[in-house]
């Protein structure tokens, strides 16, 4: 999923699932947690510019189950000091892994195993995948804006 899609979906989970902790701070924290996992792609930008996609080989261990395990441990430790902050971090991290697993081939047990799995819910063709991502991003964005407006956080 593209970066904007991750941000929209994570914030949607926060706004609809934990409305009591929604604030500018938690929205920013969730957005950061939703995109920080993708930082490992930076090392492979040059290849991605040629192939127009980040292949599953560009996903480091922090982008798979071991990474999610670490992210969840960090979140629950932060939750001991600030429950809203920890929960918004957790929502950002978990939503990222959820979307990636649904829409991309992943190597969940990397570095223990390099096997790639794909759930087949998104197209493999690059053009179709881009359109699919764009459509999902627009849907998530629209619902997020409507939800934020509905809760009086933003005025349209």
């Amino acid at each position, binding site marked *: 999923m593209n970066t904007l899609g991750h941000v929209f979906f994570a914030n949607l*989970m926060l706004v*609809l*699932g*934990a409305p009591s902790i929604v604030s500018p701070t938690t929205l920013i924290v969730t957005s950061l947690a939703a995109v920080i996992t993708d930082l490992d792609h930076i090392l492979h930008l040059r290849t991605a510019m040629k192939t127009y996609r980040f292949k599953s080989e560009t996903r480091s261990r922090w982008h798979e*189950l*071991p990474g*999610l*395990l670490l992210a*969840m*441990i960090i*979140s*629950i430790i932060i*939750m001991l000091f600030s429950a809203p902050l920890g*929960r918004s971090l*957790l*929502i950002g991290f*978990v*939503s990222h*892994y*959820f979307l990636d*697993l*649904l829409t991309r081939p*992943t190597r*969940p*047990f990397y570095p*223990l*195993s390099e*096997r790639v*799995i*794909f*759930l*087949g*819910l998104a197209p493999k063709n690059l053009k179709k995948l881009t359109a699919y991502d764009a459509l999902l991003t627009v849907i998530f964005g629209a619902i997020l804006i409507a939800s934020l407006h509905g809760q009086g956080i933003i005025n349209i």
Partner: protein
Amino acid sequence: MRVFMVKASSTFRMILKSVLTRFPILRQVDANMISGLSLALTPIAYLLLSERAILASIVTIFLVLLLDLLDGIVAHAKGQTSSKDGWMVDVTVDRISEAIISLALSRVFILFTILNMGLALLSYHYEKHAIIPLRQAILLILIAYYVLQSQPAFSFLDQILFYW
């Protein structure tokens, strides 16, 4: 115990055979796609739990588990039960699904999700499947929570589920 296991296994095969005879389309469906559908349903369970819509969340989690079972049946039908890829898909989908559901619950469930994720990685490393059936446990607790609404145990379950 062994006799019981053999009987249980043969009963399971019989049920499987009858399901496949009734629904031959299952042989053509991709097991991974069913796992994906099961995963795609979990945010709905998360939202319903956040809204304290207990009955609706029980139904959704039951559907998630049913789809999870169905993907096993389809994999059996296609003879993919020994495949490591299938196990990997199943375990990964289950862990992410648990993580999504636990977002709406108390820290106890988040801790169990973390534990299960660690167990999943160890299971792969040691080639022994040892994972807590957390979603099934959540489903049972939710059913108890729904049934015991006017009982003294309710406030205890409420604490466990949403506040600890």
